[in-house]
C-alpha cells in the first residue's frame, strides 16, 4: 500500500532529447501502422511540420509518457519509491495541459511530484477500497519554458 507520507515528494530531475525517430515510432504505434513510412507526414518530415506551422516535427498529444518511462529508471523506480505494488496498480486518469509545442530536437526536463494520496471507499469492501496516488509531471524545455503539465492518477486495489 502506498505510503501517504510521500505527498509532496519530488523525484530527481531527468532530461532527454526529443528524437525524430522516436516520434515516428510512437506515431506509428498509436496509428497502428507497421511502418513509419505510413504515418502522417507531420510526424516524419520536417518540411511538412514547418508547413503546418511548427519549428520541427511535433510530438503526438500523448507522447509525454515517454519522458517518464525512458528516464530515471522509469515508472518502476517511482512506484518503488512510493512503496506501491506495481502488480496491483491501475492507471485511472490522465490529463495534459499544453502550453507550447514540443518538437524534435527539444531537450525536455521532467519534474515529477506526488501531489495527492488518499484512500477511497471502505476497507473490506472488495473492489471498491483503493489507495489513490496523483502525480504531476512538469515538462520544461531547453529555454526554461513549461511546455506540458501532466496529471496521472493511479489506484492501488
Amino acid at each position, binding site marked *: 500500500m502506498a505510503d501517504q507520507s510521500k505527498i509532496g515528494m519530488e523525484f530527481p530531475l531527468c532530461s532527454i532529447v526529443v528524437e525524430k525517430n*522516436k516520434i515516428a*515510432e*510512437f506515431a*506509428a*504505434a*498509436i*496509428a*497502428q501502422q507497421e511502418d513509419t513510412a505510413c504515418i502522417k507526414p*507531420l510526424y516524419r518530415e520536417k518540411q511538412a511540420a514547418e508547413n*503546418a*506551422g*511548427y519549428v520541427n516535427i*511535433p510530438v*503526438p*498529444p*500523448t507522447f509525454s*509518457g*515517454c519522458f*517518464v*518511462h*525512458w528516464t530515471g529508471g*522509469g*515508472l518502476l523506480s517511482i512506484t518503488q519509491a512510493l512503496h506501491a505494488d*506495481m*502488480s496491483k496498480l*491501475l*492507471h*485511472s*486518469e*490522465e*490529463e*495534459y*495541459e*499544453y502550453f507550447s*509545442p514540443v518538437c524534435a530536437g527539444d531537450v525536455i526536463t521532467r519534474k515529477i511530484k506526488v501531489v495527492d494520496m488518499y484512500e477511497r471507499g471502505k476497507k473490506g469492501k472488495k473492489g471498491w477500497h483503493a489507495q489513490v496516488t496523483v502525480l504531476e509531471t512538469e515538462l520544461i524545455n531547453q529555454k526554461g519554458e513549461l511546455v506540458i503539465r501532466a496529471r496521472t492518477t493511479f489506484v492501488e486495489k
Partner: protein
Amino acid sequence: MLIRYDTLQIGDAMPIYTSAPITRTHLVRYAGASGDFNPLHHDDSFAKTIGMNNVIAHGMLIMGIAGEAITAWIDNKYLRKFSVHFLSMTEPVNLNDYENTKDRATIIVSGRISKKYEENGEKRIHCDIVAQDALGSRKLSGFFIAALP
C-alpha cells in the same frame, strides 16, 4: 482541413474514428515506443499469475488512439487540454479466433462539442469524448479543449 471556431456549434459531433482490431503486436509496438514494459501488456504467462486470462492493452494506447481521433480533426498545436478517465480494460484480438474477438479489440472514438467560450484571449471549444469497443463497452471518457482560429 483547417477548422474554424465560427463554423462549429455546440452539439456538433467530431468525426467518428475506428481503430484496427488491436493485436498483441500492436501492444508490443506501443510498449517499445512508449517505454512502458509492464509485462501485463505483452506476457500472457504473467497475466495468468494475477488471475487474468489475457494480456490487456495499455490504457495509454487507448488514449493515444483517442488522440489520433482528435488530431485527425483538429491540429495538435490547437490543443490546450486533454483529459480522460479509464473505464475498462481492453483485451487484444486472438488471431486464432479472429471473428469472435475482433469487436472487443476495435476502438471507436466519438465526441461532441459541449462548450464554446473565450479564455486567455483565445476562442476555445470544449469537446466531450468517449472511446468504446465495437461491443459498446466504454474504455475511457473525457474531454479536450482546443483554441481555434
